[in-house]
């Protein structure tokens, strides 16, 4: 990977930046200008960067993608196929553009859903108080580029003391190749509020493109947010996502992140437990084959006492695919009585499949419980025999065990229709895997 190539990619991403729409408020222009400066100062990551050791983006850097000037058209049928019946309110992004006409009006009195442009026009200070605060520009080139390119996004407020009656579906559709999309979402859950949010990335074509998504979630004291993220991009696509979360006193953030698609995907889940008694429960599942690479980086920052965190990341890796999991946990000096656990488990279905799993614990408090473990393995021969002794054939036994491994994560997803869809995908994938294996 040469410097010139990667910087060439960055140049191409930043090209045309002057076409940024000017906003109603100066602060947003200033933020974007900052982000642009930051992006120019940084270079794109290579495998020489510790944070990107296992994830080689050079196939991405060989492409040059441009933002779509406008949202592509989406057939009603294609859209319907992506909708979750449980969702009360849906927000649709097409090729990175928020598409209010494809989105549904949100009647739930617990929720205030506004596009950034409408929020800027009104008097609501929420956007300015939160945007780029939970996913700071920091040293992350992709967050900086997303922010520099920020056009219209969506802000979801969950009003204090209220709980959304139904899940909110955020659907990010890619309709055409050679495009880079920058979806941006801000969720502010006010004190003692609650909601379930589903972020779903879907491609309506099989071409090459890049999704560079940033989501920020702020949980005020006592809030509870369930966040499901399903990345099912085209297997030729690239996906880089960051979710920055801030958890207030006694608030609880629950996340399920599922990676099925993309040739190369990276998801950064950065969580700050910013007050006493904050809690997070994080599930992850990567189900990949072919030559896919799925990288999940979590960062849990325990800053105050009595925090809890639970992480369980699983991957099912077939063919020559490669799964990466990196779980960093900080426990600050004052974060006594932190109770934190992190488990990663991987199932390798082919001799050429690969997993790199790395826990990184930095603990500066003395009265804490931190458990972590990583296991990589094949299916248990004794389990396979047990199932065969009950009449299941080799393929059926292996499918069932693989399915069960992944289903643990899928079954905890609180939307039955989505869980059922994912269950079918897991089944198809496991069946495909056996039919491949049995091919001479």
């Amino acid at each position, binding site marked *: 990977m040469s410097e010139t190539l990667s910087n060439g990619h960055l140049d191409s991403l930043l090209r045309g930046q002057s076409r940024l729409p000017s906003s109603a408020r100066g602060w947003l222009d200033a933020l974007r200008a900052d982000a642009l400066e930051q992006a120019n100062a940084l270079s794109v990551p290579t495998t020489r960067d510790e944070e990107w050791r296992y994830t080689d983006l050079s196939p991405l850097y060989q492409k040059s993608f441009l933002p779509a000037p406008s949202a592509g058209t989406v057939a009603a049928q294609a859209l319907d196929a992506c909708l979750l019946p449980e969702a009360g309110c849906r927000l649709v992004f097409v090729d990175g553009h928020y598409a209010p006409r494809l989105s549904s009006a949100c009647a739930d009195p617990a929720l205030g859903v506004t596009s950034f442009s409408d929020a800027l026009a009104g008097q609501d200070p929420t956007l300015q108080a939160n945007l780029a605060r939970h996913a700071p520009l920091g040293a992350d080139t992709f967050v900086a580029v997303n922010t520099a390119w920020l056009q219209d996004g969506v802000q979801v407020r969950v009003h204090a003391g209220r709980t959304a009656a139904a899940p909110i579906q955020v659907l990010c559709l890619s309709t055409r190749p050679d495009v880079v999309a920058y979806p941006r979402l801000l969720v502010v859950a006010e004190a003692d509020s609650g909601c379930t949010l589903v972020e779903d990335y879907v491609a309506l074509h099989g071409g090459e493109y890049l999704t560079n998504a940033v989501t920020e979630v702020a949980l005020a004291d006592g809030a509870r947010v369930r966040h499901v993220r399903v990345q099912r991009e085209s297997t030729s696509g690239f996906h880089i996502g960051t979710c920055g979360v801030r958890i207030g006193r006694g608030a609880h953030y629950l996340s399920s992140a599922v990676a099925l698609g993309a040739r190369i995907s990276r998801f950064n889940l950065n969580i700050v437990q910013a007050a006493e008694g904050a809690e997070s429960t994080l599930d992850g599942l990567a189900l990949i084959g072919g030559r896919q690479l799925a990288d999940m980086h979590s960062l849990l920052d325990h800053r105050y006492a009595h925090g809890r965190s639970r992480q369980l990341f699983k991957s099912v890796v077939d063919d020559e695919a490669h799964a990466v999991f990196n779980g960093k946990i900080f426990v600050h000096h004052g974060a006594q009585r932190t109770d934190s656990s992190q488990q990663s488990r991987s199932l390798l279905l082919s001799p050429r499949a690969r997993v790199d799993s790395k826990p990184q614990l930095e603990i500066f408090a003395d009265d804490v419980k931190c458990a972590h473990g990583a296991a990589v393995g094949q299916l*248990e*021969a*004794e*389990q396979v*025999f*047990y*199932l*065969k*002794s*009950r*009449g*299941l*054939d*080799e393929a*059926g*036994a292996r499918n*069932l*065990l693989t*399915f*069960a*491994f992944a*289903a*643990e994560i899928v079954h905890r997803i609180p939307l039955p229709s989505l869980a059922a869809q994912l269950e079918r995908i897991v089944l198809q994938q496991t069946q495909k895997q056996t039919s491949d294996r049995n091919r001479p």
Partner: protein
Amino acid sequence: MTTKTILEVRDLSASINGVPILKGMDMTINAGEVHAIMGPNGSGKSTFAKVLAGHPAYEVTGGSVLLRGQDLFAMPAEERARAGVFLGFQYPIEVPGVTNSAFLRLAYNTVQGARGRDELDPLEFDDFVQEKLALLEMDPAFLDRSVNEGFSGGEKKRNEILQMAVLEPMLAILDEVDSGLDIDALRIVASGVNRLRTADNAILLVTHYQRLLDHIVPDYVHVMDGGRVLRTGSKDLALELESRGYDWVAKEKAGVAA
């Protein structure tokens, strides 16, 4: 009346990792019979059971086994199960993430399909399995749990017999089904097994204790040691073993051979 032979084992030898364990087993089991295998620890009882069920770790190095006249070793493990061989494991395996009910139904329908019989849909199967649960006085809550996961030793054994009840095998090989069962559970499981007996099936019990044989009365008792059957007798042989131990069997065998 012609007796139907279910299993015919002739001079069977088998090894694991190149170590010979079975060294010339012989046994004939007819329909309607109950056979018991007893013998000291390490004598090869579980090995024999697992070789019959088709465990891949064992290599058959000699002899033959016919199941209803068919070469058993020509069939992979799942075909043996479909043909009616059932192994109740000495140490049942945990399968996290697979519910007992889903597993039982999948196994039942697979085996039924292979036997040319109708499969049951989830509702029909539920009625069917409730009957079997009642037979073993099992709490229906076990259906919703993952197969054997976190089950106590006795619960695992009872769950094995539930699977047997569902699969209705022609030859049930029950490896130490009594170990881990409390006194009441032993009685319940044994009476469940007895109720599953017909004139067309057979049971091979592996056990160390007479108390199981008080409930499930064997027609034949075989004493195994060193990978072979040293002696075969009636149910009285088990009583004799209970009072005299195993030593005399080997000595008598040596005496006869000398």
